[in-house]
């Protein structure tokens, strides 16, 4: 079988309202194209022959290959594009059907959430180009390409370099969904500009990972009781927006170190269900308001997330000591 990988670039990542309310950088399309250009070189060097990609609609892939075509075949996925997150989910499903060896994503937590909804057991190499990034890593494109290529061509043992991510599963009435890192009950009545950055608008959070180094809601948990990717379970936190509340310092968006009042918090066991009250508000998944909530939201941390590639472990595993 032709060694192939899937490529999903989110053109919308890194350009939302947090550039106005914080000091987040714009991630230009040209920069994404440059990352893809380097990625293709890495993939090719590792022996990948075919890349199936989600057309991005803004010419990122085209710009990446303009003037320097790679020595591998690039095939667009022929799916009707809506310009929404659902495109990434559908693309991931098609890539699973096409039996690609790995999926490379360019985006943030939100992008990977959409991909994870369709990626099944195909390993993901996640390159960060979003605003809040706990799931994807800041990794150079060429290196990510080498890692994805080594996984897709079977030159490293997949089980040794991947891990099953956790996720936060939510149920709002009949609707079931999930977040990779955080699910939050928000006071905002509308989805609006989607991003959340003001702790006063959040009432409670469930985290699959609580990382002290993170940007976003995960950092609140990181300041209370860190929970790493490989530790089972998560955290439940109720926020307190009253002026005298005892709190922690968290970074909810780039350039916005914020004091966050804490009412109570506790560790969650894997699978333990907790109820979030978002009545009349919205439920945010991975930092973006996604669902309008008209009642309680059931949430739990599970181990049913996507298969994430550890890029460093792949390259360490490919060391050839006798040369």
């Amino acid at each position, binding site marked *: 079988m032709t060694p192939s990988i899937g490529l999903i670039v989110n053109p*919308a990542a890194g350009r939302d*309202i947090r*550039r*106005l309310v914080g000091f987040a950088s714009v991630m*230009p399309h*040209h920069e994404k194209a440059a990352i893809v250009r380097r990625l293709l070189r890495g993939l090719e060097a590792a022996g990948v022959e075919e890349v199936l990609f989600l057309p991005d609609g*803004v010419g990122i892939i085209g710009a990446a290959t303009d003037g320097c075509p790679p020595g591998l075949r690039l095939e667009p996925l022929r799916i009707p594009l809506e*310009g929404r997150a659902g495109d990434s989910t559908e693309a991931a499903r098609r890539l699973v059907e096409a039996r690609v060896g790995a999926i490379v994503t360019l985006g943030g937590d939100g992008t990977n959430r959409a991909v994870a909804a369709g990626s099944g057991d195909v390993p993901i190499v996640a390159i960060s180009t979003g605003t809040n990034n706990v799931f994807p890593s800041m990794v150079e494109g060429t290196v990510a390409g080498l890692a994805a290529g080594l996984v897709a061509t079977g030159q490293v043992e997949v089980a040794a370099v991947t891990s099953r991510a956790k996720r936060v599963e939510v149920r709002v009435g009949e609707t079931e969904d999930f977040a990779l890192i955080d699910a939050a009950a928000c006071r905002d009545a*509308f989805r609006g500009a989607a991003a959340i950055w003001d702790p006063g608008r959040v009432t409670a959070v469930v985290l699959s990972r609580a990382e002290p180094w993170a940007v976003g809601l995960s950092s609140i948990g990181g300041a209370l009781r860190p929970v790493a990717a490989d530790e089972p379970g998560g955290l439940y936190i109720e926020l307190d927006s009253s002026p005298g509340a005892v709190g922690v310092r968290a970074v909810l968006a780039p350039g916005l170190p914020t004091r966050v009042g804490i009412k109570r918090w506790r560790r969650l066991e894997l699978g333990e269900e907790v109820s979030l009250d978002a009545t009349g508000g919205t439920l945010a998944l991975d930092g973006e308001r996604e669902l*309008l909530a008209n009642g309680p939201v059931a949430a739990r941390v599970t181990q049913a997330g996507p298969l994430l590639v550890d890029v460093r472990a792949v390259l360490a595993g490919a060391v050839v000591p006798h040369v």
Partner: protein
Amino acid sequence: MEITRDRAVWIYERMALIRVFEERVAQLFADGRIAGFVHLYAGEEAVAVGICTHLNDGDFITSTHRGHGHCIAKGVDPGEMMAELFGRLGGSCKGKGGSMHIADVSKGMLGANGIVGGGPPLAAGAALTAKVQGSGAVAVCFFGDGAAEQGTTHEAMNLAAIWKLPVVFVCENNQFAESTPVSYHCAATSIADRAASYNIPGVTVDGYDVVAVYEAAGEAIARARRGDGPSLLEAKTWRYFGHFEGDQITYRTAEQSAAYREHDPLTTFARQAQDRELLQKEDVDRIDADVKKKVEDAIEFAEASPQPAPEDALTDVYVAYR
């Protein structure tokens, strides 16, 4: 960002008024009752309304050749607008501007503009006035993806950035410069990306979601009012009509338009606002009926308004500086 019931009523009413106004203008133009050229704004309502909800009469906007929606969102009287389109004396420019040069300075609406890219320098100028006078006013510059490629737009953004002017540049990216797709005319493929080169914030927002526009605009306008300088908002949108009335629209498909209509900004907001109990169904029905009446009244006013006299052809056209 909180949306009160009053605000929800205003947002829906303004969007509905723009929609009905434009749909009636399309009919009137087809019937030969409006002379000249018209470029219709239907489909893009969420942008003008989401932005102008944060503005008052003391603030300025500059517009494009597709300016009716901006006028309505900024509070220009629909009767005076219709009379202007009809070329009558009761028009906001006494019938001399027509659709493409419609203005109402009393409302801070500095004019539609027949020149693509003509608005940005005017908006920078209005913002400079506000800054020098210390009035606290903000200028908003609406421009299209075609105007984004004009030198005037770059010059205005650069000047606004170095002088830290209270202006918000709002690119209504309806994805076609007349009939040329943005992928063909824009090297960057993203207008918002350019903000980085002026060292100002650049944000992309769903121009079909009025609350998304409202939230981003609120932050950008507050930033300008605080004296923190300009910003660039790119609203991804789609026009339901052609570039101009009479356009055969051979450059895009009916399926594309149908897909946008499924996410229509008016019906989406009406549904969400009812879901959140900010509006009742009766409110929506009443507003729909009210705006229809307003537009019919506007047509009646326009038709009853006299034609300008031939001897007035040169009055109000040039300003004599003494």
